[in-house]
Structures are given as C-alpha cells and as structure tokens.
C-alpha cells in the first residue's frame, strides 16, 4: 500500500473492508475520507458493501434450502443404525 495521502481505489476498498472489523489509524481514516470524497465508484462500493454485510448476517435465520422428505427419512433411518 502506498504511503502518501492519495490512495488507489484498490487500497481504498481494502481499507473500507477492514474498517468494518477493526479500528483503523487516524491516518488511514483520513486517507479513506480523502479518496471517497473524490471517487464515486469507491463511495458506491462502501455503501453497497455495508448493505450486504447488514443483510448477510440474517442469512442463517432465513431458511431457504430444505431437505426433501425422502432424504429426511433416509437420514433418520441411518442415524438410528
């Protein structure tokens, strides 16, 4: 990652991702802010990334895939063997 104040889009998105998990240094936060204020694509990335994070946490509680009944009965038989 470059040392200067101007980050590339690749480095900015990397830090934006990291920011969701860890507290970044003041310097990194400033660099992100600088880049996002000028780059609409990275700003969109930041917003959409957050949106996905918020939704994905719910995924295990929305049961989407189900076992079909035949498989269930077969498994249940096998368990008891």
């Amino acid at each position, binding site marked *: 990652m470059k040392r200067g104040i101007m980050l590339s889009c690749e480095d900015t998105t990397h830090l934006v991702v990291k920011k969701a998990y860890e507290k970044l240094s003041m310097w990194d936060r400033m660099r992100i802010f600088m880049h996002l204020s000028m780059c609409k694509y990275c700003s969109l990335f930041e917003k*959409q990334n957050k949106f996905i994070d918020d939704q994905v946490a719910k995924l295990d509680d929305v049961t989407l895939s189900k076992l079909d009944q035949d498989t269930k009965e077969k*498994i249940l038989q096998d368990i008891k063997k």
Partner: protein
Amino acid sequence: MPKQISDNNKKIAELFTNYSDYLYNYAITRVNDTHVAEDLVQETFISALKGYDSFQSKSKESTWLIAILKNKIIDHYRKKSKQYFQHSLDEMQIMDDFFNSKGTWQTDQRPSKWDMDTDKAIEQKEFYETLQQCLVRLNDIQRMAFVMKHLDDEDTDDICKELEITSTNYWVIIHRAKLQLRKCMETNWVKL
C-alpha cells in the same frame, strides 16, 4: 433395547424434526454441494446421538448441534487435501482483476448505483436466495473466511488458525470476497 438408548433415539429424532432444515441450510451456505451438505447433517446427528449423554443441556440444543456441524465442515475441507485452504488461496489469486495496474477500477468492474431505498425489496425471498447463491459461488476459502466472520461472528485470530492462513492473507481473502459478492449481487439481484 435398553431404555436409555431408546430414549436418546427418541430425543435425537425430535431434534432432527426441529433442526434438520436449519442445519442443512447452514451447511449448504458453507459447502456448495447438496450431497455433501446432506452427509454432514447426517454425520452431525450421528455424533449428536453418540454424545447425547454428555450434552446435559449446558447450551441450547441448536447451538450444540451447530457446533458439531461446524467442526464437520472444517474437517470436510481439511480432508480434501493436506493444505486445502492454501491451494484454494493460490487459486483465488489468479482470478481476473477488478483493478488496473494503477489500482483504479477497471471500466467494466465499476460499481453502478443501486436502489437500496426499498425496504420491501430486501424482505423478498429472492434477495436472500441470490445472496446465498452469490456466497456459494465464492471460492472455498473466501466463502469460509467470509461466513465465519459474518455469520458465525468469530474472531479474526480464530479464523486464521482454523483456516491455517496468515492475517495478511485473511485481509486479501476478505477484500476479494467482498468485491466479488458486490459484483455478483449487482449482476444478479439489482439488475433483475
């Protein structure tokens, strides 16, 4: 049959009725193969039956079952090859790039605007279905790293240990996973 054993059998059958879909859904999000997911669910209940006497309701039944399943999923990947996650990581690094050599978005990879204002939209089943499909399309190590963080809420250090990766690699994996997930949602959900 001794009474203890038949009681346990009955109890496991009851747990199976209540949680098999939940466990299956959990497995499918993580392994990308319906047959493997079915096998893992089956093995989970077999282990649960064997270990039922030592369970003693210390935790919630669902939590207990998920813990068993989770170990089985990690084992499943480890069994594939000795350094399976390392191979998966190498494979990930040769995939095509989102950025040019200067680190700027490639023209065809640039994010476009989404209409996220619609609360209704995310209640829709299609949204979560697409999300699950997009997760499944990630490569194995990306999916596991992402899911362990976001769905299992694990510490970064623990994830690195379990997947046998360095923390530098972890951030590369997560960064790429999120770029791909976003792109996949844009292609398959936003533009529905």
